[in-house]
């Protein structure tokens, strides 16, 4: 028996990356602009999606793909707010991957969607490693999580195009040094669009909605944004 070293040099996430590229091409071709929402559990992804759907459904046709380990609670909330919603149950997986999004896209009529929001599984570690093929990623942080999260979960803060800091109405009650938090976030992601909001009081939501609408109108293809 002889042994031999075979050079491989292949990215471990290569297969997922290829599927993500397929998803991206499919969304592009259909003229759908897509956002991937990532956050730790309880940061307020679903609340932000509810608010986004409620405020923008008059001018954009929205769909939401919800990733959770179990239940359809989040998809139900998105549907109640007025979006077409598809639930993906990962059955224990800690993140969505490109194959899961591919099957969710099969369930949607992409020709009647302007904005697709994908709500990833609540987790600050794993989703960052698995690209889905969405156009941009949004990280939802929240004040009660603490201001050290960028330092502890650097991967989550890299490679996102917007950072929403939710629950700012709790700032007076929580030790959260906004300057320290933002210093860490911008070290990892210089120039990151950062939008403080409170989904509960509605504070800051205008800036967030403006960011979304601007993204759809500059990056979306094939659809004119219909003004109310």
């Amino acid at each position, binding site marked *: *028996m*002889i*042994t*031999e*070293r*075979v*050079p*491989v*040099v*292949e*990215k*471990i*996430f*290569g*297969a*997922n990356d290829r599927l993500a590229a397929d998803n991206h091409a499919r969304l592009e071709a259909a003229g759908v602009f897509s956002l991937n929402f990532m956050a730790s559990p309880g940061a307020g992804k679903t609340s932000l999606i509810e608010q986004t759907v409620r405020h923008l459904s008059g001018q954009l046709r929205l769909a939401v793909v919800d990733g959770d380990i179990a239940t359809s609670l989040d998809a139900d909330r998105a549907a109640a707010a007025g979006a077409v919603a598809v639930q993906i149950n990962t059955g224990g*997986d*800690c*993140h969505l*991957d490109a194959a899961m999004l591919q099957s969710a896209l099969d369930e949607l009529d992409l020709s009647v969607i302007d904005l697709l929001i994908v709500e990833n599984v609540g987790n600050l*570690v*794993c989703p*960052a*490693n*698995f690209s889905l093929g969405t156009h941009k990623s949004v990280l939802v942080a929240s004040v009660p999580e603490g201001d050290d999260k*960028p*330092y502890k979960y*650097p*991967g989550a803060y*890299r490679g996102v195009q917007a950072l929403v800091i939710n629950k700012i109405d709790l700032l007076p009650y929580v030790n959260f040094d906004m300057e320290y938090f933002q*210093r*860490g976030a*911008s*070290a*990892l992601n*210089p120039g990151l669009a950062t939008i403080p909001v409170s989904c509960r009081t509605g504070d800051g939501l205008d800036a967030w909605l403006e960011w979304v609408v601007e993204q759809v109108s500059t990056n979306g293809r094939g659809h004119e944004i219909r003004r109310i």
Partner: protein
Amino acid sequence: MHELSVTESILEIALRHGRKAGAAAITDVFLVIGELSTIVDESVQFYWDMITEDTPAAGSRLHFQRIPGRLSCRTCGYSYSPREDLPCPACGSIDIDILAGEEFYLEAIEIAETRETEKQTT
């Protein structure tokens, strides 16, 4: 964590390249993992031993080459490790480049080939 799906991807890549090279068995797998990649060696090894059973990679060894993270400050040019700090320890700038530490790939496999002559005798 997702080490199981990661390990499955590693096995898929290793088996595919093993087949292409005509391997009778895969004996060693060499992985390169950056310090900033959130992959736990021990978990990958644990799943590896489970999922390689009944494959040509059964009993093979995983080798992890860890690449230390390296950051570089775009303002003052200071080069440092992410263990020191994230903002530049020299000038405090937050405008930094990540030079190394995000790698995650399968570099090579070692395979055992069965020669024609050996095949006939076994």
